[in-house]
């Protein structure tokens, strides 16, 4: 349903320092560089002059070679992909913004300050004065309120607005249509318009009552349906951007009245006038947008703070890795998307590096590279120079070690659908050794057995070359509810055997290990594990599982099957796939953003989770999100973790750590993994 592109973006996880660019590749990060040499890239690891300086040919223009530049929409209310997000983050602004590299601390941006009521439901933001939109209009409190109202009312079910809908309408009410007709007209404007006008007006009134601007006082007051722990995180992203009400109306947008809002509901990019133009308050203005080719942003000289240091930012679409690589070598790109698989080529050319320090939650200082060992993993490849020693002079800066914000989970289908004509993915559909029964994974022991059969170590060393850690739970490090001592699955072939023997797939009350009539342990099974073609990581996940299971019992057959993306998605949506890998890239750094999709939301649905399991998780979610005390929240999510583990609803796999590169002349990059791209305001070049 939502944020489906995240499924595609497993690779993104890999080098996740910034929250990614295109759907299949990793972003690159940047950091200040020590003074060093040569403009022309030195061939590989060669000796370099003792003192070298790295300077760019064109210090005012910043060029990024991305694997693709295609912008879904520039309407902040609707944009939900990282490529659009990157443009929006640099052209529009919201009330608050992330505090540097932190994913959970916020600083004022268009709001000067804010207050929260004691119960945590009423938020009052004082709006910054003297801020101008790119077209010269003054930004007011009314603009702020209008922008949020507009988002909530016209976002639609497939937009990021569900993240705002829940705080304002209550957990589970992830779209305005939920409070109109329980979601019956979700994303279907034709159906929505047919509703009783009174109901429609009432919904709109409710939104307008919840978000009130006081232009005189310069404040905006927001009233939530319940306390909402991660509220600032929710509005800090691009969907919290402030638009110019007058400009929107001039361009054919919603006029702000409750009589007409439904006509703007669930807009498609094609009929949205704001999908390719922008008028934000941000440090950059959109200069030109050539889909699939390049996006150019230029400096906003009338910015309310000091203008940005860069005059121009060019995001180029360079699909071929070899071409991007040569652009980096030639110094024509300041940053480039580097797929994890191709990092070793870049690694050779790293002349300075920086490693994330988990304790301080920041990157350490930049050190020149004096020795490179291609056989080691990640940052261990490099030996920093001793004091006074000259570095190798290689042109790139490498950055390592920060855990990413997305992960893959092995998901089991509790009730595999069997349409007429059968379901090829479960073979015969029976317990005859040549297939599995549709309720195969409804058996908890089977799920656990699969959980114990995965080999994290191989996966991490082979696929990620050490740059990943096992994911112990759905929550990410730094979030409430993240505990290192959480129970988790690990490779244990004995337990696999044991669990298979405990299973009872013929429902005769006798565990398979003791069943004289035969059960899964004796008959075996054959099941297909599909992955989307081209996603080598997922293919490997499936192959590792298949290998280990057949090692236990050669009647256990997991066939790996690459499907074209569309076919994969279709089978997944039709709940045909017995076992799959589901990926998620977080929107906000909060456990709610993980439990919602994996239990009650998208993936829970695709897993056909039984209602009783869903309800148990729903209870945790309701509780957890409304709790403001981080410690208590932590406890709640800890219980959720335990339940997720006990039932083996899914098997979280790994969290990858960051690994990014830039030219050494690039300075001032904020490495925040939750950013949808780079924040160019702080960046400068030598």
């Amino acid at each position, binding site marked *: 349903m939502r944020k489906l592109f995240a499924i595609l973006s497993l690779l993104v996880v890999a080098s996740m320092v910034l929250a990614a660019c295109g759907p299949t590749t990793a972003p690159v990060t940047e950091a200040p560089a020590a003074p060093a040499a040569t403009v022309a890239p030195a061939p590989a690891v060669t000796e370099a002059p003792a003192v070298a300086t790295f300077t760019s040919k064109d210090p005012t223009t910043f060029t990024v070679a991305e694997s693709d530049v295609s912008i879904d929409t520039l309407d902040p209310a609707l944009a939900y992909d990282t490529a659009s997000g990157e443009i929006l983050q640099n052209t529009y602004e919201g009330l608050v913004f992330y505090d540097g590299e932190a994913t959970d601390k916020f600083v004022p941006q268009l709001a000067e300050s804010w207050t929260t009521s004691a119960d945590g439901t009423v938020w009052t933001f004082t709006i910054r004065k003297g801020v101008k939109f790119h077209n010269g209009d003054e930004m007011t409190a009314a603009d702020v309120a209008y922008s949020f109202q507009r988002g909530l009312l016209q976002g639609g079910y497939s937009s990021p607005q569900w993240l705002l809908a829940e705080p304002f309408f209550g957990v589970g009410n992830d779209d305005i249509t939920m409070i109109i007709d329980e979601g019956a007209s979700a994303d279907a404007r034709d*159906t929505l318009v047919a509703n009783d006008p009174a109901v429609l007006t009432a919904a709109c009134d409710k939104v307008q009552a919840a978000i009130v601007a006081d232009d005189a006082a310069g404040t905006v007051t927001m009233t939530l349906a319940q306390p909402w722990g991660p509220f600032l995180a929710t509005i800090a992203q691009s969907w919290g951007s402030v638009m110019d009400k007058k400009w929107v109306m001039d361009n054919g947008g919603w006029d702000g009245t409750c009589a007409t809002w439904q006509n703007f509901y669930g807009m498609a990019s*094609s009929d949205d006038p704001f999908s390719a133009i922008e008028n934000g308050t941000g440090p950059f203005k959109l200069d030109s947008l050539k*889909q699939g080719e*390049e996006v150019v942003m230029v400096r906003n000289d009338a910015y309310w703070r000091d203008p940005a240091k860069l005059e121009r930012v060019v995001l180029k679409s360079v*699909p071929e890795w070899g*071409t991007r690589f040569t652009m980096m070598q*030639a110094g024509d790109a300041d940053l480039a998307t580097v797929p994890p698989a191709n990092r070793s080529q870049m690694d050779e050319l790293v002349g300075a590096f920086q490693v994330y320090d988990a304790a301080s939650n920041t990157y350490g200082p930049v050190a020149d590279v004096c020795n490179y060992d291609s056989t080691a993993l990640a940052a261990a490849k490099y030996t920093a120079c001793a004091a006074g020693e000259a570095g190798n002079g290689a042109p790139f800066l490498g950055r390592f070690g920060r855990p990413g914000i997305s992960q893959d989970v092995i998901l089991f289908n509790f009730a595999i659908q069997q349409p007429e004509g059968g379901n090829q993915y479960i073979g015969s559909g029976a317990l005859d050794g040549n297939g599995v029964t549709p309720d195969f994974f409804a058996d908890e022991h089977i799920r656990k057995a699969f959980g114990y059969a995965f080999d994290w170590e191989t996966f991490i060393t082979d696929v990620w070359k050490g740059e990943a850690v096992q994911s112990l739970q759905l929550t990410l490090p730094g979030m409430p509810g993240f505990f290192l001592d959480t129970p988790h699955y690990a490779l244990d072939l004995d337990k696999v055997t044991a669990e298979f023997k405990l299973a009872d797939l013929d429902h005769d009350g006798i565990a398979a290990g003791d069943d004289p009539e035969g059960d899964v342990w004796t008959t075996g099974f054959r099941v297909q594990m599909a992955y989307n073609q081209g996603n080598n990581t997922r293919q490997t996940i499936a192959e590792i599982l298949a290998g280990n299971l057949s090692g236990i019992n050669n009647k256990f057959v997991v066939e790996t099957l690459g499907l074209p993306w569309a076919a994969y998605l279709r089978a997944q949506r039709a709940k045909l796939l017995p076992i799959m890998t589901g990926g998620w890239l977080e929107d906000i750094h909060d456990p709610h953003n993980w439990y919602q999709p994996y239990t009650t939301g998208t993936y829970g649905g695709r897993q056909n989770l039984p209602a009783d399991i869903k309800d148990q998780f729903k209870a945790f979610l309701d509780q957890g999100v409304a709790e403001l005390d981080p410690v208590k929240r932590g406890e709640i999510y800890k219980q959720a973790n335990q339940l997720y583990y006990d039932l083996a609803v899914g098997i979280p796999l790994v969290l990858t750590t960051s690994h990014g590169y830039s030219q050494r002349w690039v300075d001032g990059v904020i490495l925040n993994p939750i950013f949808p791209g780079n924040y160019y305001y702080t960046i400068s070049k030598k």
Partner: protein
Amino acid sequence: MTTYIIRRLLLVPFLLMGVTILIFGMLQFLSPVERSALYVRDFPKNEKALDAIIKRYGLDRPMYEQYWRWLVGVVDVATGERSGGILFGDLGYSRTSSQPVIDLILSRFPNTLDLTIWAVAPVILVGIWLGVQAAVHQNGIIDQAARIFSIIGTSFPTFVFGLLMLMIFYANLGWFEPGRLADEYMRVVNSDAFRHYTSLITFDALLNGRFDIFIDALRHMFLPILTLSYISWATFLRVTRSSMLETLRMEYVTTARAKGLPERDVIFKHAQPNAMIPVVTLAGGSVVGLLGGVVITETVYNYPGIGAAAAKAATTLDVVTMLGFALFNGIILIVANLVVDILYATVDPRVRLS
């Protein structure tokens, strides 16, 4: 001559119709949902909306009906707005590049045209020159070298060749950059000060008197031109060579020699014009080859032409976009072949005067 051209022109609509039917036939491999990109931009967000679209655009109707709709589009009774209709230039929506296919093509095509023109020119000039030399000095150094080079060249997969060139001439030597134009010049080209006469940057640069931009554009195009043309010129060489060899055996060449003409005149005045007749026919085929070649070449050199866009559409299975390209290519090639036919008639008086 006129009759000949009219006959060729009359054939064009038939060929176009054939191409559209062929392409539409391939569309039938798509599901109605995927075909909806012919008319609507966004993937329908839910099943109901999807059904409505399938019904509205008749995506489940018999093939001939769908074909007709595809040709002329569907007019909304209420608003009178037309969606789809390739006859009206609507080739559907490219979901991979988030814009209508026709816009994508129109924005990319001048770049490809620019590239092809510059690629064809050396192909024809070098190919023909070498071909003549190889024929005149049969089994001489030029002949053998050109032959060996062309055999090795045609045995190389284009992308390997392209990436190798990139490594040598860009990463190591820094001579020729990928892409279209240096950013600073791109800025000039995009500004109002730069007038767009032809949309082809090289020509516009000359017309604007910006020789620096012209040079930069050529610098960016050098490797793509090389890659695109290295197979074609071998073909031209070969055809020119064999045609020239055959011509040189003709009695009128002996006649010319017997008249006492200098060898230069014998070859360039008497033999070559005759030898060019089959070469002209080849030119049409070579445009076909070049347009096919841009798919990989543009991808490798990140050149923003239609080929790169087609390659991207292919890897993401954005079939509507690819079919748009195919149709467009078809039109270009029909025109190219027509031009070649007319050229052929001009070159050969026997065709012209009959």
